[in-house]
Structure formats: C-alpha cells, structure tokens
C-alpha cells in the first residue's frame, strides 16, 4: 500500500513512453484510461483503511531529487477522488471528441495527468512544485491542440503567465526551504515566514487560481482547448492553486496576520468580477471559464476564514467538499458543451431531452438550488464561516450566489442558441456504440452530482442535504425573474471580449512598443545625419541593419575585442586592489 504511492504518478509517464511505439501511437486514446488504473486502485484500497481516518499513509523516496515524500490523508484522498473522476471522464470523452493528432494529444494529456497526480499526493514542497509545473506546462500542449489562431493566441498568453507563475513560485519555494531548513510541507505550516517569501508563493499560485487581473489567460485557454481538456483545466487544474496556498503557506500562524481578511474580501471581489464579465460573454465555454473564476472566489473567501480558525484542518475539509462539488459540476458542464455540439446525438429526440435535462441538473446544482450539492456545501460553508468569525456580511454572499445563478441562466440560453438550430449534417455522422457509451458516462457523472451530497452527509454524519434555508431557491428564482425582465424590457446586452482587461494590457504593450520605436527611429535618424556629416561610411553602412546586428558587429571588431580584454583585466585588477 505504502509503496504504491510513488508509482501512481510515475505510471502515466511510463505509459507516455509507450507512445514511442508507432502501433500504439495510432490507437493512443485507450492508453489514457490505462494510465489511470493504478491511481484508482490506490484510491479504492485506501478507502476503508483506518490509517486514512486517523491521519495518513506516507511514503518517502530519499534517492529521488532532494528526497521526496508522499502522503494520503483524508484531505488528499478527497482531492484524489476529484482528480480521478474528472480525468477519467476526460479520458473517456477524448475517445469520441478528439480526432486530430491523437498521439500528440495523448502525450500532453499523460504528462499533465502525471503532474496532477503528483501534486495531489505531494508531502514535500519540491514534489508539489514538480507536479504543479509539470501539469501546467504540459497543459499548454492541450490548449494549443486545435491549432487555430485563437488557440495559438490563448497558448501564448497561457505560457507567458504560467511561466511567470512557475518562476515566482520557484523563488518562493527555494526561499521558504532556506528559511525553514526543510522541504517537508507539514513543518512549513507552523513556521511564520518573511512577507516577501509568502507573497512570492501566493503570487505564483494566484495566477493559476485566476485572481482578477492575473486571470487574463483563463478565459482564453479554457475555451480554446478541446472539450475534455477544458473539463480538466476547469475541473481539476484550477484547484491546484488554492490547494497549493493551503499546503505551502503557513496556515496555522496566519491568524495573526492580515492575510485572512485580505483573502475574505478578495474572494468576494472575485465572485462578482467573474460573474459580471461572464455575463457579457456569448461563447458558452468562455462563459463557463468566467464562472470558474467566480467560483474560485468562494474558495479564496473560504481559505480566508479557514486561516482564522484555531484548527484549520476542520474547515479545510469543507473547502475540499466545495472543490469536489465545483470540480464535478464544472467538468460536467464543459463536457455538456461537447454533447450539445454533437449533432448526431442531438438528432435523437430521447437522447436530446436527456442531455438537456443533464445540463439543467448541473446548472441548477451550480446555481445552488436546494437539495443539490451546491446549496448544501454553500450553506455549510457560511455556517462554518460564522463560527470562525468571518467579517463579510451574508448579504454579499447571497448576492454572490445570485450572480452564479444568473450566470447559469445565461449559460443555458447561450447553449440553446448553439444547439438549438435543427441539425443539418446529421446524415454525415452516425451515432456509434462508443459515443453512446461515453454519453452514458456523462449521465453517470450527472447522477453522481445528485447522489454525492446524500452519501457524504451520511458518511460524515453532519446534518442534512436539505439545509432548511430558502436562500438558494430565492437566488435561482430571482435570477430567472431578472432575466425574464431584462428580455421583456429589451435592456441592452453588453459584450466584453474574452480576457477583459487583457485588451488593456495589449494596448499598453503596443503603445510602449510604439513609443520605443519612435524614439528609436528618431535616434537612428540623428545618427544617420551625423554619419553623413562626418562622411563616416562604415557607421552609415552599419546603421542600415537592425541595432541587434549592428551592436554585435561592433562588439566583434578587433579593436573592441582587444579593448574589452584590457578593460576586463583592468577591472579585475582594480577590484582586487580596492579590497586587498
């Protein structure tokens, strides 16, 4: 059992190596399922173990990197469950929804999966960082998979921000390791750190979470990827940031700092920010991406009051429940976009109705209708937050829930526009048994979303799914009413480009570039004039080329090289002379 943990995430890498075999490269998709088997085995085996309930199952490999440790405790078991469900569904859907460049897709999928499993199980900072960056960077291959101009742009922004995040996080991890003298995460949680170290760690992960202003890549990348990959991006990967905050920042001593309050308000801000810009989108996947940002607001807010508590682990269990709820529902919603686009499926009236019912269930669960996981989790979170003494007024939170409900109504409307028109090309596409099978797996996910809270409450023995409050019902009803009014009164519908403030960044970038170029041009003109004046033909000739080439040519001139030799030597002599 112990010895399995390390292999769970290495296994997908091994499967990726199999892709070198051309025969398997042609039938790469089933390999994705194969890669998940050991992880499922671990999850299942750990299920009833007393070790898990009591604390953890550990494993350490001292020979690997700086010595790695993994653990499986109640929290990581729950994250592992979420990871496995969403990745498995994505793997299944890849069978029918991804047809081009399958080998390449499989390679990036497997690498990313491996990273994802690694950070879930990591008990030391290096392993977490490795898993986190392996997952993020390999996901770039999934984002650009379609190869369209849109996907390329998304990939570029994704990579730029992911790399900045990586490096910031890396600095933070190294600095924190130097500060605490260890890389074991459990020892990090109780040692206060220097402010800038914590800021580095926070910032590196905030990019993944999609904190407003750092979120610009998210509405581009999540929709650009193929449907199953979007499900994973929004369902699992985005959670890595929040869980990273929990694991890497010293949660037990945060209560004395200003961090909890900052996180509370940032969370509320994120809820509204994501919802407002999400409402201005007309592409269903972009809208879902914004909804993910908005939902991350709940987790950010949650982490705020969890840090205020005396025993943060207890609160963290509820946040994990929320993460599970959101992961399942959002994964299902992204996949539903793929099904609505599947014209052969939608041509069958029975399947069509069932699909729409599934969409409805998922949307209502996210919107927080009573008796769904959404309402149950949110009510519980609010109660826990009150216990912890969080300062955010509950009206704001209710408004946050209303925003989500509005977003979901808008999502269904947009999706209906997409799949509403009668399928025309249905004749070209036949409905295969495989497609139906995968469709059933999606229906099973919808079922899981419905059943899961009931099971969880009985398992934990905490309260009922029916919270007794009507807040969820009220927000859904208000949302429907508002939308109805909006349409009735023909109020204008605003649109925002995906990535909202990204436009501003680009404008700034272009402007800076222009200013730089102008100055550059005038400098060149001046130099050219001077050159003509002095009839210095060599300089004039050099000026025609780019400054990069020009300076390199200058640096390579023998007189410059010799002068460089002498100058460096003089500098060395002087530097030694001043100190000795």
């Amino acid at each position: 059992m112990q010895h399995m943990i390390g292999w769970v995430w290495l296994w997908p890498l091994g499967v990726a190596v199999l892709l070198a075999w051309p025969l398997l490269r042609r039938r790469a998709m089933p390999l994705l399922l194969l890669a998940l088997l050991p992880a499922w085995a671990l999850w299942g085996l750990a299920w009833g173990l007393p070790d898990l309930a009591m604390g953890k199952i550990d494993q350490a490999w001292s020979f690997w990197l700086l010595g790695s440790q993994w653990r499986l405790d109640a929290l990581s078991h729950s994250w592992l469950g979420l990871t496995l469900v969403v990745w498995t569904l994505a793997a299944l859907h890849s069978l029918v929804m991804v047809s081009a460049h399958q080998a390449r897709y499989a390679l990036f999928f497997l690498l990313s999966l491996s990273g994802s499993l690694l950070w879930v199980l990591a008990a030391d900072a290096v392993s977490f960082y490795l898993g986190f960056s392996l997952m993020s960077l390999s996901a770039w291959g999934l984002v650009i998979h379609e190869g369209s101009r849109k996907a390329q742009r998304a990939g570029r922004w994704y990579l730029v921000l992911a790399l900045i995040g990586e490096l910031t996080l890396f600095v933070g991890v190294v600095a924190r390791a130097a500060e605490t003298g260890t890389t074991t995460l459990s020892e990090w949680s109780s040692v206060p750190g220097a402010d800038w170290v914590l800021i580095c760690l926070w910032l590196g992960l905030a990019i993944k979470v999609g904190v407003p202003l750092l979120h610009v890549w998210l509405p581009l990348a999540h929709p650009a990827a193929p449907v199953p990959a979007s499900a994973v991006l929004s369902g699992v990967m985005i959670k890595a940031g929040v869980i990273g905050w929990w694991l890497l920042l010293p949660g037990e001593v945060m209560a004395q700092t200003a961090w909890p309050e900052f996180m509370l308000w940032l969370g509320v801000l994120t809820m509204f920010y994501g919802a407002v810009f999400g409402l201005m989108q007309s592409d269903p996947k972009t809208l879902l991406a914004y909804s993910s940002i908005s939902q991350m607001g709940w987790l950010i807010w949650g982490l705020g009051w969890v840090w205020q508590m005396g025993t943060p682990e207890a609160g963290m269990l509820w946040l994990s429940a929320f993460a599970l709820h959101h992961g399942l529902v959002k994964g299902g919603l992204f996949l539903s976009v793929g099904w609505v686009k599947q014209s052969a499926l939608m041509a069958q009236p029975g399947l069509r109705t069932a699909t729409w019912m599934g969409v409805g269930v998922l949307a209502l669960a996210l919107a927080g209708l009573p008796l769904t996981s959404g309402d149950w989790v949110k009510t519980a979170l609010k109660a826990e937050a009150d216990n912890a003494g969080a300062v955010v007024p509950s009206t704001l939170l209710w408004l946050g829930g209303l925003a989500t409900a509005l977003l979901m109504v808008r999502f269904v409307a947009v999706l209906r526009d997409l799949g509403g028109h009668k399928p025309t090309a249905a004749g070209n596409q036949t409905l295969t048994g495989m497609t139906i099978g995968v469709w059933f797996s999606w229906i099973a996910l919808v079922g899981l979303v419905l059943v899961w809270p009931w099971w969880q409450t009985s398992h934990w023995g905490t309260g009922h799914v029916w919270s007794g409050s009507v807040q969820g019902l009220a927000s859904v009803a208000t949302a429907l009413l508002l939308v109805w009014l909006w349409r009735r009164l023909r109020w204008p519908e605003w649109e925002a480009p995906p990535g909202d403030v990204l436009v501003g960044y680009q404008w700034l970038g272009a402007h800076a570039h222009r200013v730089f170029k102008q100055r550059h041009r005038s400098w060149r003109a001046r130099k050219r004039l001077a050159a003509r004046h002095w009839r210095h033909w060599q300089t004039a000739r050099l000026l025609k080329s780019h400054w990069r080439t020009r300076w390199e040519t200058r640096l390579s001139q023998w007189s410059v090289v010799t002068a460089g030799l002498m100058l460096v030597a003089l500098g060395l002599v002087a530097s030694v002379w001043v100190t000795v």
Partner: protein
Amino acid sequence: MTEWGLALLVVWPLLWGALTMVVPARQVTVAGGLAALVTAGLGVWAVTLSPQFLVLGNWSTPLGLGWRLDGMAQSLIGVTAVVGGLVSVYAWLDKGLPPTFWGLWLGAWGAMNALFLTADVFHFYVTLELLSVASVAMVALTPGAGATRAAFRYLLVSLTGSMLFLLGVALLYGRYGVLDMTLLAAQMTPDWPSMLAFALMTVGLLAKTAVFPLHGWLPQAHAKALTAVSAILSALVIKAAFYGLMRLWLEVFGPLATVSASWVLGLLASAAIFWGGYQALKTARLKRLVAWSTVAQVGMLVLALALVVQAKAISSVPSVHLWQGLVWLIAVHALAKAAWFLAAGTVQKRADSDYLAQIGFALHRSPISVVAMALAVISLAGLPFTMGFLGKWWLLSLAWELQAWAWLLVSLLGSLLTMAYGWRLLNLSLVNRGLPQALKPVSVARDWVALCLALLGVMGGFGGHWFWEGV
C-alpha cells in the same frame, strides 16, 4: 597500475588520433570510433578511482609534472567521457564527416583529459593550446570561406587568450618560483605581480570561454562547424576553459578572489545572459540560435562561479557543495547542449536548410529530435524533473544564503529567456509547421543519440541524492 591507466587516458586518444591520419580512409571511422569508445571507457573507469596525486616519471617538481586526480577532475573527465562517447556514436553514424575529423577529435579529447588532470599551470597552458589547435582545425573541416574565416577568428582569439595566460604564468613563476597549483595556492599573497597574473590569466580564459564581451567568435564558429563538431565545442571545449577559471578562482588565487572581483564576473555574466538570450530570441537561423544560447548559458556558469567565490570569501556561509554545484551545472549544460546541437543538426540536414522559416516541416517529421530539443531546453531552463532543476535549486539557494538579490533575479530572467527561445522551436514544430516539402533521408539512429543525451540530462535527477546530501 593506476598510474599507467591514467597515462593511457591521455596517451591512448593522442596516439590513435595520430594513427588515424595514416589509416586508409575507409577504415578511419571504425578505427577512430573504436578508439573513442575505449577512451570513454577509460574516462568512466577514472571516475571510480580514489583521489590521488601522481608525479609523472618520478621527476620531482618543479621540473617534473604533477597529475592530480581529485573530485573536480574526476567529474569533468566523467562528463567528457559520457558526452564524448555519445557524440562519437553520432559521428560514427554521420557519413558526411571527413576522415580527418577522428584524428582531431581524439587529439582534442586527449588534450582535455590531460588538462583536467594536470596540477601545473604551465602544463595547463600547453594542454589548453593543444585543445585550441585541435578545435580550430575541427571548425575548419566545414568546406567554404565562411567556416574558414570563423576558424581563423577563433584561432586568433584563442592565441591571444593563451598568450595572456602564459604572461600570467611567467609572472607567477617570477614571483613564487613554482608552477604547481597547490604550492602556488599555499604561498599566494595579494601583491602586484600576483594581481596582474590573476587578471591576465582570468582574461585569457574568459576569452576562451566566450564570456561577454569576448564572445564574438563563438556564434560564428559553433554555428558554422559540422554538427558533431558543434556539439563537441559547445558541450566540452568551452567547459575545459571554464574548468581553468574554476581552478584559478577557487584554488590558486584564493586570497585574491574577493567579493568585489566576483562582482566583475557577475556583471559580465549578466550581460552575457541577456545579450546571448536576446540574440537567440531574434536570430533567424537554427544553429545560430543554439550557439547564442551557449553564450547565454556560459554566462549562467560564470554567474554561478561568481556566487561560489562570494560564498568562499564570506566565511559565514558553509562552504560545502560549492564546486560540486558548479560541476553539476557543467554536466547539465554539457548534456543538454550536446543533445540540442545534435538534434538541430539532424533536423537541419533533413530540411537541407538552416533557416527557421524553412525547417518547420522537417521538425514536424522528426518527433524524436523535437523531444530531445524540448528536454534539453527544459533542463537548461531548470524546469522540473531534470538535472537542471537541481542545478537551479542549488544556485538560487546559494544566492539566497548570500542575500544576492540581483544575481538571483538575473538567473531567473535567464531561465525565462531560455524558455522563450526554446519555445520558438517547439512552436515551430507544433503549430507553424509550414508546407510539406521533400526531405533528405537521414538515419533515425541519429535522432536517438540526441534523445539519449537529453534523457541522461533528465535521469540525472535520480542520481542527485549522493551529490546533494545535506543541501
């Protein structure tokens, strides 16, 4: 016995290098290749020996020569053996190499082994010069005036550097009357002749290591050379000169290598990182890109050396793992750069073009080479799962210990630049792949050699623990 074995480490490649000149042209590849593999085996064997000091032929110093096999020398010999062996395999597979290549390459290898072993500054000069002559001749193997010009330029810089180095040696001998490195280190006092020697020898080696602003010869020479030659020059020959810098700064000139002197190194290194990175980001040609990346990565090595010098000068910092970290970075760069150059050469051959705009399709059809390049890039940038990651970890923790924020920032930006220019190639192969075109047939085995080198750079992460205990 050991003494004979170590002598063989130098004599065997030199002897076979000479012999290949008289072997009939058709058998040269076999003879040279086998000799190279035996040399690699000898190198690996030398790593397993215990550290020792040998006096050659029982001539006592100062007239005799001392050889010293310590950890630093062993690591470098080992790296050279592994990388050199694999590059030899690649050269064996490359039918386009002229037969003279083997003589020159074996000569260069013998010179490098002698250079790593020697404990005498003058002998160091001789081996360095031998290595330069062989390297210059290897660059000149490429037909065409461009390569000859690049080789000539390389020779001039190299000769100038050697002369300055020799001037330093003369000053040292005049001042201390000994040439042995350990004896010099024991007597070293910071006075004018020593300072002058320090500056001259350092500058000479900086020119040979191609540190900004003395880097001008490198992109031309490395980009113009034949593929196997580029890999040897970038991965190994540069490191031999850098090894000299390590010996001088960390050992011979101990009391002179002060914090302020390390600032000079650090500034040059930062300039190299940015200038090399920027050029690599903008250049239109494939091998140029890789060569410019060498300029930037050499900057990274020199930056690390500057940090180590600082750590040694400030006694409060524990001085464990200082040279080990440097050697680790050298190994990272040697493996990654050899892999990258070999993969790039294969792709270039297939596309029959060196322009990035024209190789998209060839990249697309060489997935193994693309994977090799991608692994090399992530190892150089210090991303996870690679040897480079551990190297970067070591570098950043050292910078943190020293509170050297500026250098920390520079090395991070260097990583970012590395990713950026590496991404250019990856993007070409995945997204902008260009129109289908007829490709030249090139054996897939050559792609695999590059991949082997790149994978070794990744697997190094597994071997990290013996090296890094206690870091």
